[in-house]
């Protein structure tokens, strides 16, 4: 009666046969295998792969249970296994992507919905209170005023272009809230990026600088952002990130406009700007719209300043040209961190 059911962990990169079985199970459930997944919990019943759940850092995705195995306790076991796998890997604050119709299923795993992109995807997290507590901490920072602006910067690294954007926004607003993307997935570490932004905006009085969070352009809320060098663009991921901003962060701080630099070079960032207008401004939502203000990029010698260009020049140790693109504080940091004599030709 009781067929042997076995759970174990698979690293898809090292196990091509397992990976193929997983891919097939996912395909039967209209899901694609996500290559960012580092580990899968899989379940075999008498040798057949009947369930899987993938883990990409703190995010659970690619969850599938074979049709004939549903309605039993198997799915709850699968949930327990993947939550324990995450804990063993040091991840406790977990996110999960699901198709909207499966939301009740993942409620049983102790996940709670944050935002939904209608008919596409729901982002859930494994706490009924974490977002509320985060918003409480933001609300404590609210500032009075008619026009309250918000900016999210990756600043990889902080340039005169960022400086121009922040400066223009601060002039136009009673108060400006600036967030630095926290994820350590860029050339410069989060600590360095944050320090350079802090140094670069120190003289602006009507501004609060925030550390990033899991809810603002993180690997969990917007995985595509960190894959942009590979040219992978997933538009619905941008929607999740933007809806979090509109439904939670903006209301908590009273932000009514979000500032962004125009994007002439980078396809992902440009598509993000287009998406931003759609999800912050046009889509109906319980929360009031956030106006998107696109500021033309500052330029130097007729060319728009970009962090991408700074990184390109840095690879050549061309500090002469970098000096025209970044504030003195950033230049100093780059010169000390990337000595010229270490250049590899």
């Amino acid at each position: 009666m009781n067929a042997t059911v076995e759970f174990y962990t698979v690293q898809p990169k090292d196990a091509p046969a397992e990976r193929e079985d997983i891919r097939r199970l996912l395909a039967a459930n209209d899901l694609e295998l996500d290559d960012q997944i580092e580990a899968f919990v899989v379940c075999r019943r008498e040798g057949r792969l009947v369930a899987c759940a993938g883990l990409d850092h703190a995010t659970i995705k690619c969850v599938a249970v074979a049709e004939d195995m549903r309605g039993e306790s198997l799915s709850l076991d699968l949930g327990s296994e993947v939550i324990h796998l995450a804990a063993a890997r040091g991840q406790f604050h977990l996110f999960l992507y699901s198709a909207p119709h499966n939301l009740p299923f993942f409620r049983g795993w102790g996940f709670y919905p944050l935002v939904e992109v209608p008919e596409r995807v729901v982002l859930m997290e494994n706490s009924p209170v974490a977002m509320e507590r985060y918003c409480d901490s933001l609300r404590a920072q609210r500032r009075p005023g008619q026009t309250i602006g918000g900016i999210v910067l990756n600043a990889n690294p902080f340039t005169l272009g960022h400086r121009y954007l922040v400066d223009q926004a601060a002039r136009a607003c009673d108060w400006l809230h600036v967030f630095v993307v926290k994820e350590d997935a860029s050339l410069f570490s989060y600590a360095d990026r944050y320090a350079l932004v802090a140094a670069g905006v120190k003289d602006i009085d009507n501004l609060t600088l925030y550390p990033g969070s899991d809810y603002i352009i993180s690997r969990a809320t917007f995985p595509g952002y960190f894959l942009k060098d590979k040219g992978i663009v997933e538009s619905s991921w941008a929607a999740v990130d933007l809806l979090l901003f509109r439904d939670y962060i903006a209301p908590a701080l009273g932000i009514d406009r979000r500032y962004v630099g125009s994007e002439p070079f980078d396809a992902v960032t440009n598509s993000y700007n287009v998406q931003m207008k759609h999800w912050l401004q046009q889509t109906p939502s319980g929360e009031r719209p956030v106006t998107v203000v696109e500021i033309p990029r500052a330029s130097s010698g007729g060319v728009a300043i970009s962090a991408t260009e700074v990184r390109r020049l840095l690879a050549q140790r061309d500090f002469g040209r970098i000096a025209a693109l970044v504030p003195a504080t950033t230049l100093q940091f780059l010169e000390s961190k990337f000595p010229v004599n270490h250049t590899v030709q």
Partner: protein
Amino acid sequence: MKVTKEAIAGTLESSDLLVKVAPSARGTRDIVIRSEVIKQFGKQIKHVVTDTLDKLSVSGGSIVVEDKGALDCVIRARVQAAVLRACECKELEWEHLS
């Protein structure tokens, strides 16, 4: 005992519960209980969780309980396990676990 890191204990299976413990930013003790039988047994579950935490002298931390209809003794054991992991407890005081 002081909660110094995040920890979990338990499962999502029927008659069990999953307990998540984490340090709290404000230093307060925040308990959140979700249960399939919250209407019938919510008060009793809260009582068992609070009492277990008190006996272990846990004054701060975020404690989230996902209950699947567990008995009191199971709730007590899972809360203890999660707290002891979260406090990186090396030496057990057995009388506090009874």
